């Protein structure tokens, strides 16, 4: 009944909502991670087959129909690395933001940035 796909869609919506609705920047970063994880889940679900075994060849008998599709897994390895790199950049920016402005709330930072720009020291 495609329940796993509904879970993926649910996570996608959760991540998107968190990115949009929450004012705390760290929560937005977490929402971004959830969003990307949902997409990874969606891809992996494309690879699943009933009664399939791991796509590792051992022995002489190689019938492709018995293995699950390894291509989405390989693609998602790259996507996970991308997710890690993006999270790294986002968190590095957040650390600098906190050191600079003393807060991680979107509105507080916006008003401090505005006062910064209106009165360049």
């Amino acid at each position, binding site marked *: 009944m495609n329940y796993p796909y509904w879970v993926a869609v649910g996570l996608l919506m959760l991540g998107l909502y968190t990115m949009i609705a929450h004012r705390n920047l760290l929560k937005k970063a977490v929402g971004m991670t959830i969003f990307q994880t949902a997409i990874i889940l969606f891809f992996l679900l494309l690879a699943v087959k009933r009664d399939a075994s791991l796509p*590792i060849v051992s022995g002489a008998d190689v019938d492709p129909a018995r293995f699950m599709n390894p291509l989405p897994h390989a693609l998602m*390895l790259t996507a996970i*690395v991308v997710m890690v790199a993006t999270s*790294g950049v986002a*968190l*590095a920016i957040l*650390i*600098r933001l906190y*050191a*600079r402005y003393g807060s991680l709330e979107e509105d507080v930072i916006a008003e401090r940035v505005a006062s910064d720009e209106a009165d360049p020291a």
Partner: protein
Amino acid sequence: MIERHASVVVQTFVRVLTPLAQLFALYVLAFGHYSPGGGFQAGVILGATYILLALAFGRDILDRKVNQPVCVALGAAGVLLYALTGVAGMAGGGTFLDYSRLPLPVTPVRARYFGILFIETGVTLGVAATLIILFCRLGEQESNR
């Protein structure tokens, strides 16, 4: 600033665990061909061993063991190893990243195995260096730029 951990148990355990973990990272790298593993995973484990050292013995142990500009260069050298393996394939007469044409005295099938081993080693170096640098830089208490 991360201080040396107070407990002797933690310090001893980390001291015992680190070489074993690094050996495991090498295993994961070499056996990525036959079982789950490969360059990125091995690099993460390798980087994590250094971070574990910092958590147990204080941040300044990293300054002794790992020189920062050299670490960045090492990371870049790792990825450069990947790119140059691909270029070596070009030099051997194939297209970019064609490992069967590497200038090694083995059969094309074996040459692909070596090609993948080289690139995964490059990836391991790059990822481990990145994690260590991330930990060092982000942990610094730096004032505003």
